[in-house]
Each structure stands twice: as C-alpha cells, then as structure tokens.
C-alpha cells in the first residue's frame, strides 16, 4: 500500500510535466501579442520590440520553457506582466475564496446528492425517484450563471436573506463567511449534485439486486442499515470516482461563479489574466488547477481501498 502510494506520487511527475508543456505552449501559440497589448495603441513597432525583448518573449521556445520549469521548481512562477507582483503572491492572495467555495460546494453536494441517489434507487419508479431524476436533468442543463443569477435575484434581492455578492474571509467569522458563500455554492453545485445523484442511483439500483442484500434482509437488518451500510459501501467506488472526476467541473464552474458573485478568487484572477494576456499568471493558475486535479484523483485512487477490501495495491 505504501509502496503503491509512493509509486503513484512518482507517476504524477510525468503527468505534470506533460501538463506543464501543454500549458506553456498553449499560450505560446495563442493569438495576440502581450508586448503589443502592454505597449498600447500609440506604440511604434520599435516600442513593441523593446518590450518584447525586456520580457524575454523573443527567445526560443525550449529555452523559455526550460527556464520556466526550473523557476517553478524553485517556487518562482514569474512576475505578472500587469501588476508586477510575483504570480505566487497573487495566487496566495486569491486562493482562500476559491478553496472555500470549492470545499463548501463539495461538502454540500456530496451530502445532498448521495442520500438523494440512494433514496431514488430505493423508491425506484416513485414520485421521489422521478423528482430526483427531474432535478438531475435540470442540474445538467441549466448553466451555472443562470442558476447563480436566479438564486441571487430570489434570495438576495427579493427576499433579502443573503448578500448579493462579495466574500468575507473565514477569519472574520464562520457565519459571515457562510452567508456569502451559500448561494455561490448552490449555483456551482447544481451540475455536480446532478452527476453524483445519478451515478449513486444507478449504482445503488444494481447493488440492491445483489444476493447479499437479500441476505441482509433475511438477517433482520432494517431498511436504513441495508441502504446506507450494506448497499452504499458496495456502491462507493463508482460514486467516489465520479466525485473526483467532478472536481474538474467545479474548477471550471468556479471561474464563472466567482464572476457572477464577484468573489475575488482564482477564477476571477484567471479571467482577468486571460483578458489582459498576462501569460505568467495564466500559466501559474492553470498549472495549479491541474496539479490539484491530479492530486485529488490520486487521493481517490488510494481511498478505494477504504471501501473495497478486494482492491489492494
């Protein structure tokens, strides 16, 4: 198990290397010249050339890539073209809201979606099942920003229960923090809940047909015990897998959600950086997101052993 964990961690190195190459070259080949943008509309070609040289944009691709990787390994992600702040500092300033949003969404989604799926499977064909499935279709098909604006309109503007937008730091208190995040989390969680609920339902339907469920009933186990212990533990592997894969949805959704609710997080940072063609920032943020995603999936692979004793590494 430990050896496997070490091997898996080592295996993330080539993955991250490829991601790094991709991230770096994607921006290299993207249209638009940051030197021209910085120089502004009035600049002469000479000005642009000078700025390009000062940024190092005129040197060969591989040289720049090697240098970039080396610097990142030393904890230096470069300096923002616009703010002149180190990228790591900018990420540090923005990371808390995004992590808060994602963790809260994750907890909320899992604690809502899994019981929803379980109950839908148990009551297959009933109105509860149909309601859950209907909700899932809705969750899949309505975009995050629509849900976000609708929620903000109802609960913030009309009912005035929650703030419309913004973010309060966690250190300023749990409830103010929660108040600001609850609507964004629900908006962001919609697709995620739909995804997890559907997989939970489908897997549970299959598990509930198994002989060992009949055995549990023959032993006199109660319905809740059968659903949440005997069945759910058997259904856990696909559910946990989809929770991990869904992190990608959350990362993508966070960018939109943060814009809708004016949350000063990494998503907003990414959008701003893209609009300004702030290469070092874009690269830093995308690399960070990729790293988190790889890490989450590693953790999930290792978590399988907790649920299924037949999986041994």
């Amino acid at each position, binding site marked *: 198990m430990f050896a496997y964990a070490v091997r898996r961690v080592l295996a993330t190195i080539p993955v991250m290397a490829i991601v790094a190459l991709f991230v770096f070259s994607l921006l290299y080949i993207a249209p638009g010249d940051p030197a021209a943008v910085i120089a502004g509309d009035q600049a002469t070609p000479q000005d642009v050339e000078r700025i390009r040289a000062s940024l190092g944009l005129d040197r060969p691709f591989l040289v720049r890539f090697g240098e970039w990787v080396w610097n990142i390994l030393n904890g230096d992600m470069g300096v923002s073209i616009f703010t002149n702040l180190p990228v790591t500092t900018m990420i540090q300033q923005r990371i808390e809201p995004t992590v808060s949003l994602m963790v809260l969404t994750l907890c909320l989604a899992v604690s809502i979606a899994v019981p929803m799926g379980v109950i839908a499977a148990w009551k297959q064909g009933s109105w509860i099942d149909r309601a859950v499935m209907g909700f899932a279709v809705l969750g899949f098909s309505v975009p995050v920003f629509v849900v976000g604006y609708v929620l903000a309109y109802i609960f913030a503007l009309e009912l005035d229960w929650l703030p419309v937008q913004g973010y309060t730091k966690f250190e300023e208190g749990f409830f103010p923090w929660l108040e600001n995040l609850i609507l964004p989390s629900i908006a962001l969680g919609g697709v995620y809940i739909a995804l997890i609920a559907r997989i939970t339902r489908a897997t549970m339907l299959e598990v509930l047909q198994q002989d060992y469920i009949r055995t549990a009933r023959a*032993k006199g186990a109660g319905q809740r015990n059968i659903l949440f212990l005997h069945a759910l533990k*058997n259904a856990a592997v696909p559910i946990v897998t989809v929770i991990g894969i869904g992190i990608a949805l959350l990362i993508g959704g966070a960018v939109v959600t943060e814009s809708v609710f004016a949350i000063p997080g990494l998503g907003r940072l990414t959008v701003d950086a893209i609009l300004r063609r702030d290469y070092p920032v874009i690269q830093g943020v995308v690399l960070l997101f990729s790293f988190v995603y790889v890490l989450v999936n590693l953790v999930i692979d290792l978590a399988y052993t907790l649920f299924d004793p*037949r999986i041994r590494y």
Partner: protein
Amino acid sequence: MAEPLLVVENLQTHFRTPDGINRAVDGVSFHVNAGETVAIVGESGCGKSVTSMSILRLIPEPPGKIAGSIRFQGKDLLKLSEPEMRAIRGNEISMIFQEPMTSLNPVLNIGRQIGETLRLHQGLSARDAEAKAVEMLKLVGIPEPGRRVREYPHQLSGGMRQRVMIAIALACNPKLLIADEPTTALDVTIQAQILELMRGLKNTVGAAIVLITHDLGVVAEVAERVVVMYAGKKVEEAPVVELFNTPRHPYTQGLLGSMPKLGSSLTGTETRLAEIPGLVPSLKQKIPGCVFASRCPHATDLCVKVAPALEEKAPRHVAACHYALKEGAIAA
C-alpha cells in the same frame, strides 16, 4: 397435541407482471414440527424458493402478493408489522441461500457479518459480537477462526463461505432454519461436508429445518418428511422412506425415475436415463385440471378437466392424483 412450530396454510404468492398474474405459489399447505427436517422438492420454477422466501416475507410487495396464513409458534407472520417481522428474521427463523459466492457482502468482514445478527437481535456490543463470531466459526468447522473473522468473503472458498452463511444463520439459535438449495453450488465432496455439518448442528442447536432442494440424493440424506411441489402446488407429501419406496404421484415417480444410478453403466444394465417429457406449464393462466396433466403419461380427460384434491393415500402420505392407488404405483 400442541400446534407444530410452523403451519403454512393455503399459501398463495402471486406476482403481478406486465402480461398477467404469475401464480408462483398457489395454495400450498404444510407444517413443520419442532426439530424436524422437512424437504421441499421439485424442479426449477415449481415455486419452492418462493415458498421459502414467503415464510420470511422476503418477497418484494409489490409486485408480489402473499396470501393465506403462515403461523409460526401460533403467530400469523403475514399479519405482523415490518418491525415485528424484522425481529423474527435472522433470530427465530433464519435462512441459508443457494449462492454462497454472492450471498455474503463483499465489503464487510466475516466477523462483522456474523456479528450483525447478534448485535441486532441480542444487543451485543461490537466486541462481544466478534468474540461470539469466532465461536460460531469454530462451531462450523472453519480453521483458524481468530484470523478468519477479520477476513473478507473473497478470501474464502465456496465451501467456507457456505459455512459462514450457516454460522450467520445459527448465531442466534433459531427455532427454524430455512435452507434454500444450500449445497447446489458446491462440489460434491464439499456438499457432503456441508450436509454433515447441517445435520450435526441441527442436533446441537435443535432447530427445525426446511430444506429446499431439487437434489433427491440430498433429500434421502437428511430429510424426515418430503413435500413435492409442482407448478406452484403441493402434489405429494410423505415420510422420506415411504416416498422413496412407494411414490404415489406420477410426477414424484418421474422425479425418482430420472435420478441417475451410480455404476449402472458398469454392470451392463445401461439404460437411457428416464426423463419427464415436456416443460413446466406457464403459471400465468389458471389450469382447470391437474397441473401435471400436460406431461403425465397416465393423464385422462378427467385429469384435464378436474383438479385432483390432496387425499391421504396411506397413513401420513397424501397425493393429488385421481389415479394414485392406495397400494404402490399407478395401475397402468
């Protein structure tokens, strides 16, 4: 005389299906005395498993519907609430299933699965339940029970798993054990071991057994009384020796005739194995006459039109056939 441990009267288990009602069990009655072993035999689809599942009310309702009465120690199980029924399952009546490979939960360890019934019904703590589980494993003849108790089903062989199932079933000292084809999925040598184990444990625990099987060899081995089922109905019932010696119903005769005899090809008396021609009729339409008429070599117009009642043909020996004579076989 006191009432038997279990009295099943006119049990009807029907399933609603898109193309009509499936009468899987249609008016079956039998009883089991305390400590007795009763076998229910019949070919696949005759309703024997459904009968056993109905006793514990493990049939999903709907689409299933159980009617009639099932009196266990004087209580009608069909009238109990679900929580009352749960207190009986695994405690006073327990069940062993056909598929040891899939009947244990793959993600819970053996100790936990045996301990679960003890925790549910006897309120044992997790630690006491595990200690008792080790004891049960020893009782069913699993070596190194202290280590096995922490293992998972995939680490055990089929025979071992069936032993674990038996341990689960017997953990709470049930008064009645329903064994639904407990040896069908096992090797012949393991089958013999499991049967031996069940017989031995029956004496220690003192439970009555309802044994569901299509294997007449197993019946001869362990049962005291036999109920023969065909197409959802009981067609014959007799003490085991009587049934094997003088089967009254043509179906029972057919079943016994289709048993291969070991060594028959060596002694030069090789004969084609007898079979019962045809298939079990669909249970979806009501059959007015004898359910076996379509396959019976002796069937007449009477058989097709009028259903024969169960009649006592000899002491403690009933059969549902117009022509089953009081002595021996059909008058051909």
